[in-house]
């Protein structure tokens, strides 16, 4: 069988302009080769900066943000598309090879109807008339399982949900009947419960139309469900390239093995104590416009333990953290901390109450002032709460850096000079500096690569045993919950649907939502998607 896409010794370089230094040339992708046959799916996987998106775009002979393809060959049906030139490549893009971006919300033009955008490329390329394109779009909307396919195209992007938008984008890519589609992390921005639908839709559509695809993601469990082959990338080089079965079941490289085994730890839960550190009692909250975001939530957390709050976006889990910190005073109910009522409003809270509850944000980039050095960032709480200055402060900052497993050399760096994982560690150190009793962690690892995230989780666990910290850990990742939690709270649309010790909360009998949530988490196992879909079908048939 002839190769549809054949990439040989691909080399992509870009010029970077580090501040205060002369520009330098960096190699993003170095010597990557692979083949893709018609109707097959190749998964490209790696952490951020591994060059996976860059490789994906090279199939369209496109370099993003100054990246330039400087060596190698990309052949589509035997023609080297890198040698085609500007006009030649335009005939390929959007007709033979299509692209599905990570954020569909940003990729659709909000001023035009979805239907017009979906058929635009096919009509522009003269592949079909407007009516034919409309018919095909309708067919694709059906295949992708979109609601009301007849009228779906009449809607504007803001009128449909994120998962539907991502499927509409897949329809747009499939519309001109391309031979190859590049999926660039199509489900990363979605909730797990939505992700599974989109994944199933994409898989079904690819099979139905017999299109080949490059599927780019950082989540090995996702790619295992959809691809035939997997290529693991790191620092722009191929780590391992093989069939899905081989990669998942018998990885040969250490890095791949680490990826496959990531987060398979689970910890024993600590027993529930009668004396709770934090007690949230029947708390409701609403925004100033009267929109109610929390409805009578009650839960508690014991000292030295971890409470995981799970739920999809919009479930109110971050809002609960804001209520505990006082950023959004509750409209109803009480919060008690060590037996005493917490002052509802942030402005009225005494300094010591503020010190004892610290918050770690999801995005460490925006949570730290870019104009302050690590010394200032970690040192400020020391000065503010403990009056430390000068040498005493520096000594304590160094001590804290040691605790978060970073060397003293980082003390004078700015956040921009740190990696994502290091930034999150500094944010943890800032929280630790206040010597808190409770740390609220608002998805601290969801913006990080899996291996880096695991390092952060291990650090948090170590700190917990060292200094008897309690955590409220907000996440949407069930695997993390299994790894670190003692008790679990599941939230859905502002209500608490399930709360209890981990062993109880995560074992049957389940309520409907928890069941859906648990079943939607991709597992590192072949055929998981089919299994879940079949069981769903059986359940709906049984009803």
């Amino acid at each position, binding site marked *: 069988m002839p190769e549809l896409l054949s990439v040989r010794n691909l080399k992509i370089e870009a010029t970077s302009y580090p*501040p205060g230094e002369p520009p330098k040339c960096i190699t993003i992708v170095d010597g990557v080769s692979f083949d893709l046959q018609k109707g097959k799916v190749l998964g490209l996987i790696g952490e951020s900066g591994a060059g996976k998106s860059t490789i994906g775009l090279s199939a369209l002979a496109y370099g993003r943000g100054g990246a330039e393809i400087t060596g190698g060959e990309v052949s589509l049906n035997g023609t080297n598309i890198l040698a085609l030139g500007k006009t030649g490549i335009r005939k390929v893009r959007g007709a033979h090879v299509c692209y599905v971006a990570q954020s569909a919300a940003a990729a659709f033009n909000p001023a035009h109807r979805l239907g017009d955008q979906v058929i635009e490329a096919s009509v522009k390329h003269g592949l079909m008339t407007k009516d034919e394109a409309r018919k095909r779009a309708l067919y694709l909307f059906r295949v992708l399982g979109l609601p009301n396919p007849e009228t779906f195209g009449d809607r504007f992007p803001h009128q449909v949900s994120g998962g539907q938008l991502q499927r509409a984008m897949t329809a747009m890519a499939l519309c001109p009947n391309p031979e190859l589609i590049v999926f660039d992390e199509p489900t990363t921005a979605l909730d797990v419960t939505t992700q599974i639908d989109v994944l199933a839709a994409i898989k079904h559509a690819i099979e139905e139309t017999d299109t080949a695809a490059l599927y780019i993601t950082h989540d090995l469990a996702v790619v295992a469900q959809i691809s035939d082959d997997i290529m693991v990338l790191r620092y722009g080089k191929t780590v391992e390239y093989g069939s899905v079965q081989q990669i998942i079941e018998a990885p040969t490289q250490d890095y791949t093995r680490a990826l496959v085994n990531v987060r398979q730890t689970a910890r024993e839960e600590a027993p529930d104590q009668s004396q709770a550190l934090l007690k949230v009692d029947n708390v409701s909250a609403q925004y100033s416009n009267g929109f109610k975001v929390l409805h009578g939530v009650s839960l508690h957390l014991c000292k030295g333990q971890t409470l995981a709050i799970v739920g999809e976006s919009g479930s109110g889990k971050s809002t609960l953290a804001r209520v505990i910190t006082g*950023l959004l005073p509750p409209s109803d109910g009480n919060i008690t901390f060590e037996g005493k009522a917490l002052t509802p409003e*942030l402005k009225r809270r005494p300094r010591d109450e503020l010190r004892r509850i610290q918050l770690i944000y999801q995005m460490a980039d925006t949570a*730290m*002032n870019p104009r302050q050095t690590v010394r200032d960032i970690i040192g400020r709480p020391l000065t*503010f709460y403990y009056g430390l200055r000068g040498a005493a402060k520096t000594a304590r900052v160094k001590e804290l850096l040691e605790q978060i497993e970073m060397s003293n050399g980082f003390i004078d760096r700015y956040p921009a000079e740190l990696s994502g994982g290091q930034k999150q560690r500094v944010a943890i150190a800032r929280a630790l500096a206040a010597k808190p009793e409770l740390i609220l962690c608002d998805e601290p690892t969801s913006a990080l690569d899996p291996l880096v995230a695991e390092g952060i989780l291990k650090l948090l666990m170590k700190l917990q045993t060292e200094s008897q910290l309690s955590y409220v850990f907000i996440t949407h990742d069930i695997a993390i919950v299994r790894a670190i939690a003692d008790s679990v709270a599941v939230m859905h649309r502002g209500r608490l649907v399930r709360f209890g010790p981990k062993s109880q909360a995560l074992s049957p009998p389940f309520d409907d939502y928890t069941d859906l949530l648990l079943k939607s988490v991709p597992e590192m196992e072949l055929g998981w998607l089919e299994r879940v879909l079949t069981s769903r079908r059986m359940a709906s048939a049984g009803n």
Partner: protein
Amino acid sequence: MRLREIPITAWIGILGIALACFCAIFAPLIAPYGETEVVGGVWQEADAQFFFGLDNLGRDILSRLIYGARTTLSVALAATVISFSLGILLSFIAAVSGGLIDTVFSRFNDLMMSIPTLIFALVVLAVLPQHLIVLILVMAVLDSTRVYRLGRAVALDVAVMEFVEAARLRGEGTAWIIFREILPNTLSPLLAEFGLRFAFSILFLSTLSFLGLGIQPPAADWGGMVKDNKDGIIFGISAALVPGTAIAALAICVNLVVDWLLKRTSSLKGGRGDA
């Protein structure tokens, strides 16, 4: 900061400003003649004795230019610094506090801006006693409305960032949030505005002097000198162009320095890299 890293354009600007400051400080020592001394005929041509020639009353233009640097520079600089301090402080307080304070400040600012600056200044200066301090304060207050607008816009962008929220959660006061969290992150656009505003305030002072409400004669100031000599242009006498050129040159010099500072602050490690 090594001297070698300062670009040539910034050096030109620094030298120009240094020259103006030098003239202002040592005016009595370096000026060949007195500020108001009549030394020859009306609009006498430039020669070896009088470098730029004489003005409409027979005073030496070079000497008046040197003395004029004093008033022009000090008044414009003082007015700009005060207008910036006032504008930034009020706008940041408005952005950080929000709610009623923000509304009151902003609507009052709109009210001020709705009256044309020049007419406002003319009315106020005509009523108030003729004094240098009054002039500086009026210029500063009127100019601060523009600074307020910009300051509030850039501060609002930063005030919603999570590190500001983190500072609030720590229990920091408004002063810390304004000066330590927000100000360093908004410095780039504000510096650019400073250069522009300084040039504008020289021009504004010149306009006021030109209309007779700025620096009072016989004291020399660059704008006033243009006014005194403007009639000469009709007769092909270039006396008015000399102070005019000085104003333009100073404005350009200030902006060259500001451009460089801007590049430095925005390319600082950890800078936001924009603006």
